[in-house]
């Protein structure tokens, strides 16, 4: 009771306080950092928002699915769920490579469904300030710029931040499907 009373006189000030805290919030948001899981495909480092990553597993036995798109490697058993896996090299139009001890499958969630991305190796979880993420420049990336959300910089390295929804959306896949049939 007494505590509330003591605070009472301050109350009228509140609107102002809120305004101040809001501006502060704005400043903070620009300095806000997002976490990304980074991985390597070929010579480039890519990143995916950490919240989208369900888990990272080692290479496992993949069951081939007939008549699938070339980048769709097949399906795996993820603790009892059947999860499709995509070879990112094929997806990005790079040369295929044998899977080795470093090859991992990053399980991401796209619209409530799980999809695995096969990548050469996983490197780190990094913090990248939102401010330092730039929109896709028109540089000669090996991959379609549609998949890229932006480019971030970690120390001296560039990280290509991928938009998993774009890459893995079923619309995109149905479109591909249509192209193939046409």
């Amino acid at each position: 009771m007494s505590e509330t009373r003591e605070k009472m006189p301050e109350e009228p000030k509140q609107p102002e306080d809120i305004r101040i805290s809001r501006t502060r919030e704005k400043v903070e948001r620009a300095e806000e950092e997002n976490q990304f899981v980074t991985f390597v495909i070929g010579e480039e480092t890519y990143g995916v928002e950490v919240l989208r990553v369900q888990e990272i597993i080692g290479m496992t036995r993949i069951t081939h699915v007939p008549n699938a798109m070339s980048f769709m490697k097949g399906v795996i058993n993820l603790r009892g769920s059947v999860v499709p896996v995509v070879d990112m090299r094929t997806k990005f139009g790079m040369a295929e490579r044998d899977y080795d001890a470093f090859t991992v499958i990053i399980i991401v969630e796209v619209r409530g469904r799980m999809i695995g991305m096969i990548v050469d190796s996983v490197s780190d979880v990094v913090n990248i300030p939102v401010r330092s993420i730039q929109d896709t420049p028109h540089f000669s990336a090996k991959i379609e710029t549609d998949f890229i959300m932006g480019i971030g910089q970690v120390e001296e390295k560039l990280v290509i931040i991928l938009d998993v929804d774009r890459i893995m959306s079923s619309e995109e896949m149905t479109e591909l499907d249509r192209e193939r049939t046409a």
Partner: protein
Amino acid sequence: MDDTRVLRDVFIREAADILASLESDLVRLEDEKAPELVNDIFRYVHTLKGSSGIAGFKSVYAFTHRLENLLDMVRSGKLAAGREIIDLLLVGLDWIRLAIDSGEEAPGLDEGREGLLKRVEAIIESTAPIPAEAPGGDAGPSEEEMDLGYRYFRIKAGFREDIFETGTDPLMIMEDLFSLGVVVERHTDRKRLPELSAMDPEKCYLGWNLVLKTKSPLQKIDEVFMFVRGDNPISVEDITAQYAISTEDPEIKEKRIGEILVAKGILTDVELNDALKTQDGENTRIGDLVVAKGYATEREVQFALGEQEKIRKRIETSTVRVDTGKLDKLLNLLGEIVIGQSAIAGIAEELDEERGFMLKNALYGLDRTTREFQEQIMSIRMIPIGPSFEQFRRFVRDTAHAHGKEIRLEIDGGETELDKTVIERIDDPLKHMIRNAIDHGIEPASEREAAGKDRNGTITLRSYHQEGNVYIDVVDDGRGIDKVKLRARAEQAGLLKPGEEASEAKLLSFLFLPGVSTAEEVGDLSGRGVGMDVVKNNIESLRGSVEITTRPGKGSTFRIKLPLTLAIIEGMLVRVGRNVYIVPLLSIVESLQPRKEDIRTVKEKGEVIQVRGEYVSLVRLYDLFGIEPEFRNPWESLVVIVEAAGSRVGMMIDELLGQQQIVIKSLENHITKSRAVSGAAILGDGRVALIIDIHGLIEEISR
């Protein structure tokens, strides 16, 4: 904000259940005129009213309030539940449904309500008192019946603060109430009671919430509050069913009839014990005994039996809603446990004999548990088909009336359990078959009478388990299917040559082909010759089948056979190269190793294989799936002859690995456009194997 949202969602779900029950009860009321149905209906409407008010559906609340008034008159016997009232109530339900679904925003909602309310008023005004029933007549809830045994009423009584000014003393009212029975629960509402200093002695601050145990009917209690009800918040609710269980029998178990009789004050303990003593063996029923001993009347025992039934129903409905996704997850995890088990079993093989034996024994026990675990999870997915059947009552009634026919719907085996997905998908085919039965199965009343049959037709929906399958019969007692006419139609459609012999089964199977119908005139509802083929396809997609039997002048039976669940199939594991596939056992006819001379290439048909004089297309699975096989010559490999939708093909495989129960997992649509693959399963070693869809495979190769 969010809370209201949740509240509304809960209400919408609850309302859907209530509306479904109401609908089926209303239709039953028309046929059976059972008094307890009126009470149930009244209670449903009352609940709907209460919850809609809480959830903020004001318009629904106001409307149900008026319906409740109307029903009250029916319940108290002032109105007879005739066709007019039932029609009105059914249309009323439609309105409520529309209002709830649209969030009270559908166009024309208000006009609809006003129209309906006018009809309600018209009925109430034109009420002619029900003709007094002949004494001994068995229809209608008689006072005597209501008076059997004790009933429990929850009474919530609040009073206006200024009630004393009207000269009414709540205390007198409460005392009146107490004279009717025993108060078994009492809460005094002191919320409005101010501090002593602020109290005005001429004001009433108290309210009561009590449960009265009494033999008096609701009417008597209502009379007590007659003069204060108008402007004071007072509610009286019959809670006998809940109360009897929640307080007297906290373990919610089935009550024995004797216990109910005692609880209701019809029998004393001494009388019951006496009756129990004389009960010899299980064959004598305690109910008969107490009647024979003169402790209770036949009627009282019947009443107790009714109560027992009600308690059973309450037990049945003490359920929890679970997202099926959670069940699937449970099943997935269980599958992983099984895989873990087989890994341990592998280790057990490597241990020394004694310890290996011990470990294997322990695993054997675990295996049994996991098996049962799986069965239990599967059984959660199973729900009784009853509610699905019930929803057809209204459909049958309305459709029959539209045709000027009187048709009764009988339901049998509503407790039969089926996989939820099957139930959801069987609705449409069933509806179609029922519509057919109404439209051209059952004859018009005049024709029926001429044939010496009951004027009213009967359609029976029956469900039962048999040999690991579920059967649903749609039976009508109509004119049967005219085979002569069917034959003519088939010839017309070019399915049969004139004079060609055809068995009854073959003739009837034409009914499922598009464009064949025996209805002479194309009806508004059916008879266009479309539909039965759709029905058949729908049922086959559930891995079921339909079969017709018919007797001229007696009626027809459509028998649907369905698998217990869609989640599990019996599968044959086959190997092609390094890949393992699953072939549904049901579609396998045989497997064989062909001789070189049995393989031919036929123009425009591709490769065929001769099986006992018949030619069957040969499918090179490795070609179709683009994989490396072990054998490329059919005479080295094995050929599995499979069948779907009447056609057969032979699939080339390398090896048969054995038969296994398979839990089906769906594949995302976008993974493959191949129709030959319909799902996947996880094998004992943790590998994923694809399930071959024979139907799709045959379609794919015939393209």
